């Protein structure tokens, strides 16, 4: 008695991705293709079902063509697809789940249809009907003698308005596997009581808080046992790197250093990824981040560069100078030493800006 599922969540199809600027539209299309790729994995893995633990769509009422394309892809899969709506695509009345025809192979878990039986297993769950949800207890097991897979969009072990649950909740659910969505970073397969659970994470990163390779879980669920394998699907990786440019004395050198570091870390295909770069180390010259970003963008799909290098300043010595700058530093140092932890960032920033003002225009770092 077993069932093999592909567990995914949080595709957020239709998300605007404004941070990508001109790349946003193509990236949105790519994410839709990722769903297609997941479907192909379902077939290659000979899965019995595709389980999507919420937030397929970015909003409860996405653009009509996005919903149509999504349902079309799922329809073509042919295998059973079980969907639990999340806080982003919660089941409001104008949800495409209601206003458009769901493919026959797709089951949306609702109050009316709380579970679906696939072979010896039952897949059940609770969808969001509003932007927030709180569950007092796990839903009852639909398949007492068989395999039960619970699909939930939930926050685990945190105070949240988005279906906060804890390990006790999972343990008492009695399910064999709980397929979780909402947290975009994948978790390992964990166990609470006799129940296994995991976040698959999002299959395609959509911001620099969703780093590294993303993918889906292929889970073989047996009564009382689970074996899961993480399968990467993301076309591109979001990466955040701090790169020391102390040895660079012009913008070209900075570009070369960045490329070298990225190439070493991400291989020959490093250009396909999305990068957020913080330049660190000693400031040898005024780095033109706009120039660096533009230069690197010729080859790299997306990159943004922020200058976080430090000018070589010995504040203690500077503070001893009987000059305006010296007295300014001295005063700031006094304030820094006397301020609370809460005030510290303000005084540090004030010192940084003040010193910068002696050197030139003070520009807000947009990155």
């Amino acid at each position, binding site marked *: 008695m077993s069932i093999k599922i592909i567990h995914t969540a949080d595709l957020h199809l239709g998300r605007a991705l404004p941070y990508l600027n001109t790349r946003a539209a193509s990236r949105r299309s790519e994410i839709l293709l990722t769903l297609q790729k997941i479907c192909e994995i379902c077939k290659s893995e000979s899965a019995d079902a595709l389980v999507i633990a919420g937030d397929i769509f970015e909003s409860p009422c996405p653009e009509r063509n996005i919903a149509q394309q999504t349902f079309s892809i799922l329809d073509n899969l042919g295998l059973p697809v079980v969907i639990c709506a999340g806080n982003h695509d919660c089941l409001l009345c104008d949800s495409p789940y*209601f206003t458009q025809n769901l493919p026959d192979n797709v089951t949306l878990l609702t109050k009316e249809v709380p579970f679906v039986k696939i072979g010896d297993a039952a897949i059940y769950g609770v969808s969001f009907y509003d932007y927030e949800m709180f569950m007092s207890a796990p839903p009852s097991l639909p398949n007492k003698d068989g395999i039960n897979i619970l699909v939930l969009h939930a926050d685990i072990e945190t105070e949240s308005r988005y279906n906060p649950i804890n390990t006790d909740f999972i343990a008492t659910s009695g399910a064999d596997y709980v397929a979780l969505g909402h947290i975009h970073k994948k978790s390992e397969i964990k166990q609470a009581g006799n129940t296994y659970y995991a976040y698959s994470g999002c299959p395609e990163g959509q911001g620099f808080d969703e780093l590294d390779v993303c993918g889906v879980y292929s889970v073989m669920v047996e009564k009382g046992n689970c074996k899961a394998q993480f399968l990467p699907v993301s076309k591109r990786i979001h990466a955040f790197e701090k790169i020391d440019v102390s040895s660079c004395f012009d913008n070209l050198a900075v570009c070369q250093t960045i490329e070298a570091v990225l190439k070493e870390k991400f291989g020959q295909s490093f250009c396909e990824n999305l990068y957020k770069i913080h330049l660190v180390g000693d400031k040898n010259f005024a780095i033109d981040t706009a120039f660096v970003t533009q230069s690197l963008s010729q080859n790299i799909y997306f990159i943004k560069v922020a200058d976080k290098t430090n000018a070589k300043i010995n504040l203690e010595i500077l503070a001893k100078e009987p000059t305006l700058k010296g007295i*300014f530093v001295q*005063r700031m140092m006094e*304030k820094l030493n006397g301020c609370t932890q809460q005030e510290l960032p*303000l005084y540090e920033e004030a010192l940084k800006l003040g010193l910068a003002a002696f050197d030139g225009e003070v520009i807000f770092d947009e990155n």
Partner: protein
Amino acid sequence: MKINKIQITAFGKLKNFEMALNDKFNLVFGDNEAGKSTVMAFIKMALYGSSVRGSSLDNPRVKFLPFDSSQMGGVLYFTHDRINYRLDCKFGATPAKDKIILFNDDTSEIVNLGTSQSVGEYFFDLGGQTFESTAFIQSITPSGGADEIAKHLSSITGADESVSPELVKKRLVAAKDSQFTKRRVGAGDKIADQIEKLKKELQDEKDRAKMLSGIKAEISQKQAEIEKKKQRKAHLTAVVNMAGNIHRYEQLNELIKVHQSKNELGSLCKGANRDFISNCHQALWNCNNLQNTANNEKAAASKALSAANVNSLEQASEVLEQTKAQFEKSKKRSPLLRTVLIVLGVILVFGGVAAQFFTSLFAYPFIAVGVILSVLGITLKNKKGYNTLQLQQKISALENAISIAKQSNTSNQKAVDSVCAFVNDIKKLDTDATFETAKQTLDRFERLTQVLQDKTSSFAALSQALGVSYDEAVKELESMPKTEVTEQQIAYAKDELNAIEQTLTSLVMSVATLNERLNSSVAHKGAAQIEREIYEAEKDLKRRTLFANAADLANEVLADAYSQLRQSFGPQLNQKTAELFAKLTKGKYDQIKVSHDLTLTAGEQGAFSLIDLGYLSAGTADQAYIALRLAVAGLLANGNLPIFLDDAFLQFDHNRESVAFELLSEISKQQQIMFFTCKGDTAKRAQQVGANLINM
């Protein structure tokens, strides 16, 4: 610090160069291009390095790169706080490639610079820029004037030749304004506005979600209502359909009743029909006519008999016989007289008429006599009083009376016969009928036959309308279910049904409209998405707010620092500058003031007011500037700063230059002086005050 010796292995044009210095006043003399500036640059590079990058000549690593590209470097020997030091310098292409090592020359140990980033910082607690702007003194250009002095003064107090406190403040204000302004046009203002907009959008979205839920609930409610109405409609339709059955039931019953009534009437009518009744009426009419005729004739007979002076037919016959006999007797007496009288009378009449044609006067008497005679002849009676004529008349009257009486009797008999015949007919319907009751019987049966006729017609029409015969009607009626629904209830049901159908139509349309509203929703952001945007915008706003607040704070601290600078350093600077200025001008000007707006004002001895430097000669202005620079150099680094002057007295005449050298000689007792010049006269004048001449 006192520099004892400079050894340059390679720096600019200098290679394997060495220069020994004393600890007081050194005058370095050499022609242009001799390398004086290179020596000064080496000293600065040795003490502070250089952070200037790029390939321009501003970068000393480029400017002073030896022609043979050998590694730049050298050794600086100096004494500080009575300790001898040796500074080994090897300059690379970049600061990272520099190798600068400080040795305690007394112990040959490497000196750890601690947190200091340069040897200069280690000994002077001054940054490279401050060192350069205080220890190195050049002559200001003749065209500079007061503004140039102010600029230099600013560079001294601000430790940066390109920045004034006002500029720093302006940059910080601009930084703050880039985010938040009173007119709300800063980037932070826009983010804040965006957040407000997003919050409103979020509320709208939540309201919208509620509205949609409301619509859905309304649809569910209406659909439930529709179901109820449909059920009610089905019930009412059944009731109304039952009304059709009831109607037929009643019609069938009516058919049967009419049929029964028809049959009853038929038996009551005893075979009477319209023809029979019509015949009876004809017979009755005849009876009446005959009776009327008989009555009339009876009256005529009575009258005729009376006229004949008899009472009855029998008496009339008898009198007639007697009269006839009498008449026969009268016809036999005096007929001649009567004839004569009549003939004469006629002749006279005719004669009179004829005579009238000739003369009217005599005719009329003849006519009158003739008439009279004729009447007499006619009226002449028999002997019993009757004349013949009278008898004849009596006979005629009697005969007439007898005839009429006989006719009357005949008519009367006919009338009686017809009545009997009529009564006999009626007796078919009513055996006890008399003539008087027969007429009533006839009327009664006439009415019965009319009713029967109507019933028969009704039955036929009903039978045709219902499509059944009597037998079929009976059979159908027996098979029909009984119902207890009243007509009133059915009427109510019909009314309610109409109302329900209207309501149903309205509900269905309403549901369709609501569904259309749901289905016509255009793509929109969800609350979760908006909340994330708010979160990100607030994070951004927080950074911008911190930036703006920090810029404000930096400005406040800058203002405090500037105030402190003026208060702590300003008085000493003023005092020292004035002292030196008085010495340079041999007491002519003993007043000078560094004002808050970084301008210098000076006054002659005893003057009550100070005048702007711009009103003084270029030389005097330069003296003021030199006084200020020397004062600053003396005040900084606890007087340990060696002072480098690069032909700083170009604006001075010989006397002023001599006086200035005397001053330098005095200062050199405390601070080492290195005066670089390419002018031989200048060198001689320096030597006159004891300067150590070093030729290059």
